[in-house]
């Protein structure tokens, strides 16, 4: 992957993360219900976090 | 014993005229219609001279000439007949072992002279 594309994709993931980690996405998952034994909000945040890390790893490691 | 001439051409009318001319000059003739037939006819008819058209289906005159020379027909006289008269083609024909090169349309007198001379030269 060329440098320009890699940079653009990484910045894209950063913007995506900023949106997903904030209002209004946050409010959609802000309930005290449990899903599979863990709180919905906690599961959402850590889930998105894992996805973001996976995307970063994929973009940063690809040749 | 009269000399034997094999006529190879795919144009029936030309074959008719050549047969007439050769017979009139006192030679025995046989006819082949394309290159492949020609190779078989040479082996069978064992001619002293071949009148060989260049542009023919299946195998052209150059190929036939080369093949004949390669397979030991060194004494056989070969006269190439061609409608392509450019110098490169004449040179090519002589280079691969033809004894004469006659351009279509030919003068009948010249053709008969060429054939007679080649066959006489062979006779001594």
């Amino acid at each position, binding site marked *: 992957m060329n440098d320009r594309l890699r940079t653009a994709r990484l910045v894209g993931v950063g913007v995506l993360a900023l949106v997903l*980690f904030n209002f209004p996405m946050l409010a959609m998952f802000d309930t*005290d219900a449990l899903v599979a*034994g863990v*709180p919905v909000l906690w599961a959402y945040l850590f889930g998105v976090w894992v996805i973001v890390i996976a995307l*970063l790893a994929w973009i*940063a490691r690809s040749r | 014993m009269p000399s034997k001439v094999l006529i190879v051409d795919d144009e029936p009318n030309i074959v*008719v*005229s050549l047969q007439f001319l050769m017979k009139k000059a006192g030679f025995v003739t046989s006819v082949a219609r394309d290159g492949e037939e020609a190779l078989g006819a040479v082996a069978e008819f064992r001619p002293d001279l071949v009148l060989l058209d260049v542009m023919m289906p299946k195998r052209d005159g150059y190929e036939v000439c080369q093949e004949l020379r390669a397979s030991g027909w060194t004494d056989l006289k070969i006269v190439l007949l061609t*409608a392509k008269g450019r110098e490169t083609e004449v040179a090519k024909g002589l280079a691969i072992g033809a004894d004469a090169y006659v351009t279509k349309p030919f003068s*009948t007198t010249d053709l008969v002279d060429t054939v007679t001379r080649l066959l006489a030269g062979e006779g001594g």
Partner: protein
Amino acid sequence: MIDLRVIVVVSVAYLGLLFAIAYYGDRRADRHRSIIANGYVYALSLGVYATSWTYYGSVGRAASTGVGFLPIYLGATIMAALWWLVLRKIIRICKQNRITSLADFAAARYGKSALLGGLVTVVAVVGIVPYIALQLKAISNSFTVLRGEPPAVAGAADPPLLTDTALYVALLLAAFTIVFGTRKIDAAERHEGMVAAVAFESLVKLIAFLAVGFYVCYAMFDGLGDLFGIARADPDLSQLLVLGGFEEYRSWFWLTVLSMLAVLLLPRQWQVAVVENVDERHIRTATWVFPLYLLLINVFVLPIAIAGLTSFAPGTVNPDAFVLALPLAQQRADLTLLVFVGGLSAATGMVVVETIALATMVSNSLLLPVLLRRENALAEHRDLGRSILRIRRITIVGLLLLGYAYFRMAGESLELVAIGLISFAAVSQFAPAILGGLYWRGATRRGAIWGLVAGFVVWAYTLPLPSLARAGLLPASFVDGGPFGIEMLAPYALFGVTGLDEVTHSMMWSMLVNLGLFVGLSLTGRQDPAEHVTASIFIDGMGKLDSSTEARLWRGSATVCQLEVLLARFLGPDGAHSALLAHAERTGADVSPDAAAEAGLVAHVEALLSGAVGSASARFVVASVVDEEPLAVDEVLQILDETSQVLAYSRALETKSLQLQAATTELRAANERLQELDRLKDEFVSTVSHELRTPLTSIRAFSEILSDNPDLEVAERSEYLQIIVAETERLTRLINQVLDLSKLESGGAEWRVEDVDLDDVVATSVQASAQLFRERQVSLEVVADPLRPAPFVRADRDRLVQVLLNLLSNAVKFCPPETGHVEVTSHPDGDWIQVDVRDNGPGVAESDRAVIFDKFRQGGDTRVARPSGTGLGLPISREIVEYLGGRLWVESIPGEGAVFSFTLPIAEGAH
């Protein structure tokens, strides 16, 4: 309860291990076999972001705000995604210009401004010292918890100075920092031993925290589900699982922004990310490994907080100490000690790196500019290098003692997290000057300075000041009623803005004035020459404009000897000499002592000194030995313009050369096409000549035979005459077709396209070829589809007849006599009508199907057809059909016949 001796032995042993690792790291670096030249080590060293504030404080914060502790790490994750863009550029600029600290970076960007460097240093020290105090407090607290004493609460008597563990910890850390942080005068050199130790500490704290997390979740409780279930059932604890409201989202957003900036601008992060970076490619690894690290170290924070709140009665244990208190209450001394060591790692790692970073800033950006400007400073000290190192060492001790003093004074009254956020807010004041200066050419020194000053003042007034008031150091009325009772100035509600939490409130106001002044003053002010130069170097930092341009911007005179003497003062005589030789070898510059120093050499010496004393001081020091002619603004602008013009020219040239290359390729292709056409034409002429000579040969031969042999028999004579006539006809036909084809191909043919009755055309053609069919005894049938509409087509009638005649004579030629059968059918197909001519001849072999449409190419056994075919019928037919907008093709099953089909557009209004 763990015996004090055990705690001390473990602590000392652990610190000893750190010394050993750092020593090993330095030894390896000296032998050029780095152990830190690895993306994962780089990512782990960046883990110094997670301090004891994370280690102990996150649980404390989670115990009061639930998931609210997370933005500090989510923001850092977002910034990690931007590292490849931002951090890489910073690293390149720093490596090129030997910039060693945040303060130096700010100074160097804005015309090597010593004032700005000093300001950044002051803000950093004021903002970070409490943070260092926080680490000392965390260590001290963990000692207390381990010894089973009640955790210190606000107002408790301080222990006597000499028995205070925090003091000894501070001194020990100062020793470590001095040993591994000030080995070399050049601060731009990496501290590999220290980085190795810090990366190791990151690993230790992660393992320890994960261990206690697993223990709490799976040994003390029945997994995450169990803990969350307990929390869900409790009305108080269930509040920790949600954020619940717009105010919370707003704070969350600001915390995200705050941590994005902090993870780049905290001095310790700058130190490990920029100064200690070995290879910029390591950023790619860190981009995902660092966020992963943060995720792992945060997974168990909320569960541990819930476990602590459920296990201990309210008020008995400080939530900041839950991580230690939980295993301790379970009598797990081993696990408790591991957690303690993890906490020690988190705190010491932060203190060491932060202190080195701050010490570099204080010495290079604050003390040296002052010292070197003192009269005779350069003359007095023979060996400046050693004095600079001494200054740095003293600074380190001073900083740690300052931290300790702060801890003694106010530390006990504050939560860990509160101090951490205050520090974050302080360093985020650098963002406009640093990040803005990285991308905005027009940013000026004045804007940067005033923005920073104003932002810092607002920060100080709205965050640390009221917290001091709460700690009892200022009257409490100050917080609520404002100074002198002016409510508009109340520090937590400036100008009556209420309803925000303290950090959001402070960030909003400080960023407003900081950014406002930075942008406003930059837009209204002008840059001086020096600023123009440095701005260009920074903005084009991705390797376009380098210090050679900077060299052009310098005009003055000095001898090499003068410069060498100057360098020797800082690097020692040997160091100075070898540095000059290395430069000479690289650039070919003349470095004999009496030679006049060229601009490139002066720039190089300045860069070397920058690493040692900072860019502002280096500029000053160099200026002291060379006679410098100041450049006027317009001169600088001219030179920079020229440089950018050269860049523009070279870009334009590059574009031009690409265009030329493309044009050449096109020309070559066109030429090849022409040659190919030429070759085809040549071949065509040669073929035509052959085709013409063949009938001529027969004609001449028989004419001569007839003329030479008057005595031929009548039958023979008439046969030969017939041959002559036939061959003459053939010749005529051939000439006509060649002319026809050449007219069609050149577009010179006349066309009369009209609505034509197809049935009529077919009838005409059939009639015209009837004789031919009769001769060869081939039957011909026209099949009309009774259902089709009136078969009018757009065509030229005569040409269409020509096509059909060609196809019919073609068909009859290949049909066996007597049994031959040819069929003509037509049927509409959408807007088209298709005509098929079907024969039952030998068919067309697959390989011949394309070539039969070429000129003079006849398929199959041509002997039979030769006299009547010219080899041009099908090519001409295809030309005609295609001109009329249709298509002509053949389908065939060899042995069973062939179908020649063509299509024509149906006349409009006819269907």
